[in-house]
């Protein structure tokens, strides 16, 4: 029998993986994927809590998050394409000109 704790631990592991991906990978697309993992870790928490409390709210929020994530992915990928055309690179460290 999986308890709420199991779901939360899995969620934390997924979130940590996503965070590590964001900080460690040198590829924008991978970073975007890592962000998706973080989002889904959070989604998992919502659903788990919703089920634990017998409420539907968690699932509703997840529906929203997935919608926003889909839009975000579209916009994010479009930006990445534009950046690539601009600099011929996907390394985030190449894009530091937006500063003082």
């Amino acid at each position, binding site marked *: 029998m999986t308890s709420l704790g199991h779901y939360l631990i899995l969620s934390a592991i997924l979130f940590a993986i996503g*965070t590590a991906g964001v*900080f460690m990978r040198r590829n924008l697309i991978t970073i975007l994927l890592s962000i998706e993992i973080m989002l889904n870790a959070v989604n998992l928490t919502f659903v788990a809590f919703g089920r634990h409390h017998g409420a539907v709210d968690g699932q509703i929020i997840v529906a929203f998050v997935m919608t926003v994530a889909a839009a975000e992915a579209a916009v994010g990928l479009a930006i990445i394409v534009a950046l690539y055309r601009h600099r011929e690179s996907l390394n985030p*460290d190449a*894009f*530091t*000109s937006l*500063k*003082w």
Partner: protein
Amino acid sequence: MLSLIPLFPLIGFVVNAAIGRRLPKAVSGGLASLAMLASFAVSAMLVWQLAGMAPDQRVIEQTVYTWIVSGEYGIDMMFRLDTLSAVMILVVTGIGFLIHVYSTAYMHEEVDGEYARYFSYLNLFASFMLVLVLGANLVVMFVGWEGVGLCSYLLIGFWFRKKSASDAGKKAFVVNRIGDYAFILGMLLVATHDRILSFDFQRIAAAVGPMPTETTFGVLSLATLLMFIGATGKSAQIPLYVWLPDAMEGPTPVSALIHAATMVTAGVYMIGRNAVLFSHTPDTLMIVAGIGAATALMAGTIGLVQNDIKRVLAYSTVSQLGLMFLAMGVGAFGAGIFHLYTHAFFKALLFLGSGAVIHALHGEQDIRNMGGLKKYLPITYWTFLIGSLAIAGVPLLAGFFSKDEILFETFHRGHALLWVVGALTSLLTATYMFRLVFLTFHGAPTAPAGSHRHDSGSHRHDSGSHQDVHLHDAPPAMAAALIVLAVGSVAAGYIGIPHALGGHNLIGEWLAPAFMAPGEAVVAHEADAALELSLMGVSSAIAFIGIGLAAFLWLKRRDIVEGLAQRFAGVYRLLLNKYYVDEVYDAAVVQPVRVISQEGLWRGFDVKVIDGAVNGTATFVARSAWMLRRLQTGSVRAYAGSVFIGVVLILGYYLWR
């Protein structure tokens, strides 16, 4: 009705100020003069109405609106015509009108815009002056008081492109401010006195009337002294007289109107207006009389050696104002106002006459370069002569009656020393006035008029010596004003023929109720005809001696004058340099203020403290921003890292607190 009197000139001001530059000269000058004429007509009508009332009820009031309300206390914008202000409005509007007419010719060389500016100022001045004399309480009076000061500044500096003129304007304004400050304090002391509590002149008089006379120097004495300091500023008395001679930088009709006939008499009027109050403070009155006598004598001696025709007249004005204050100070309020009234005629005449001379000589003001003008400028000469005779106190002319009244009252009230000073001043007056007449109009032309030209700004004609240019006498508008004023200088005294000469001293009786607390009975004046007649003889003799002395020294034996000037070179230089008062003030007041302002307030406080605080704030923000902006690397991963660390820290805080 009453408010129309200051309203007409105000309308003239608004029109000339707004659209004057597009109007031809005839229209703007005519409009201004017409405004004065209308004002004069209304004044004359109201004074006529006033004269028809019972002697102790001669008051016409008009409340225009309530100006300030504070709880149950209120100050009304209120005008009041009584016997005293009746004299003043007739002088201001009547002589004002003549001077406006004169100005239309005198200023004709100005371009249209300047011409209209001149008349707008002149009208504004008249309006404020009428507010001053008609104001029924101290606050309304003060509005006029400040307004005429402003107009005086504007008109002295009318030719503001000339440095000396704009400096003179500023000097007049600043010196007047010193007096005005004291005046405000005095005004507030009176109004906050727990037994007066009012700014209204009638209520002040009613409240002060039953109070005992202040034998020791008390609150009321302080209040009246402060008000008198205000008067010394406005009326050019020691120690604040220094602005008036410099004020001669303004156009000559302005000198005639503002700095001889009307504005400078405001201080005398103010004391007359508060006669009941001043009567209760004998200490202040003694100071007033002393200052008046000292000023009269000092200015008279300076007038004796000055070489600028207008400056001689300016010092003469200061001296005559001193005599008026002497009269006020000994409690002879009627005599002071009478002299104010006659002085307005002959001093305006003398100034306008000097203006005609300057006009004819295209800006020459130095009497050493004049002479023999008698046959070129007959109208100017004869009117100027009448004015000089009147001011010298020759019997049967205006100045004789009023000056005599002052001297008699001074002696009669037991101030023998002050009488001597007054008599000496009369002698000086007669002498320096006829020195002026003889040097200007008699004798031979002494030097080419063009050699030392004091360009008064408007007269920029090229002129050689005055033989080879056409010397024209006063044009009709100027001549008319001169003649009317000359008639006035002869006739104006006849409303005050003393009892000793079989007259009734009409003006004294007319004015008397204005100097009394309401309900107080006019005390019959016990006349000492023998004394008065003998004093009259003395002062007539003094007048003739003075004239004779001037004739002897400056017509017959000019060498004696030069010998005297050489033998007493020190005294001569002292007088020529006006007792070095300007220099003393400069060293004692102007320079310290300058140094403190420049080194202390400007370079010290302003630059170091105020600018330092402002610049310091800016520098601090700039420096800290310079350090903080290092954090903005542009690297997205660094931002993400800081967000992550921040979230961890916040969560950690909530988990482990």
